[in-house]
């Protein structure tokens, strides 16, 4: 069973959850990242996700190992989608099982924060009036295609 995957196909939530079911776990949390229509009042039409796939899987594995070391008895599975995603489509599913519930929330939260730090995956937002690679996890850095320093090279 592959606990960490980059998928070109729609993610089946139940399949990710099934990977972390264990007799010792009393709690499973999932985080499901979906494509939101509005970001800072701007209307998204769709997104393209791109990954450095081999490294992305390695980095997801690293995050899982960090969690299993930090939260005793935890099990982790993560699948991240790539390709074109429409509004409400699922970009990522993180499932974490732990013996007790507090850990399941904390470990899951840790996973998404780490994904936004170290996993080589990028999203390009498409709006009615343009498109742009989103620059970082805080969504404060972006690379609008209209900017002069890039405009020279974009075709």
């Amino acid at each position, binding site marked *: 069973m592959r606990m960490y995957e980059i998928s070109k196909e729609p993610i089946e939530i139940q399949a990710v959850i099934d990977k972390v079911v264990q007799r010792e776990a009393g709690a499973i949390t999932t985080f499901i990242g979906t494509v939101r229509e509005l970001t800072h009042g701007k209307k998204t039409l769709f997104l393209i996700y791109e990954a*450095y796939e081999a490294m992305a899987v*390695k980095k997801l594995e690293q995050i899982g190992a960090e969690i299993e070391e930090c939260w005793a008895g935890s099990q982790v599975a993560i699948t991240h989608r790539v390709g074109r995603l429409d509004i409400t489509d699922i970009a990522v599913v993180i499932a974490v099982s732990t013996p007790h519930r507090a850990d399941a929330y904390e470990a899951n939260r840790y996973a998404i924060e780490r994904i936004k730090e170290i996993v080589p995956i990028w999203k390009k937002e498409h709006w009615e009036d343009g498109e742009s690679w989103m*620059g970082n996890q805080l969504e404060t850095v972006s690379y609008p295609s209209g900017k002069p320093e*890039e405009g020279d090279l974009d075709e």
Partner: protein
Amino acid sequence: MNKVLFFAHLRDAVGAEYLTLDAGGKTVAELKDELVEKYDLPRMETVMTAINEEFASNDEVIRDGDEIAFIPPVSGG
């Protein structure tokens, strides 16, 4: 020879998913400088580098055959 991968806005800037070039013996910083000059790559100070799928610092020396990737700020999740 070395395969050098580009992603997101860097791929748009270079116009290719990867280049094959000889970077053996150079540091990451030296390779970056060369590519910035040649392709006018924007904001390389925010771009991380990976050697063989692991993050590498600017002073690391590239060996022949290493796969290099330039990693703009990530935005998965």
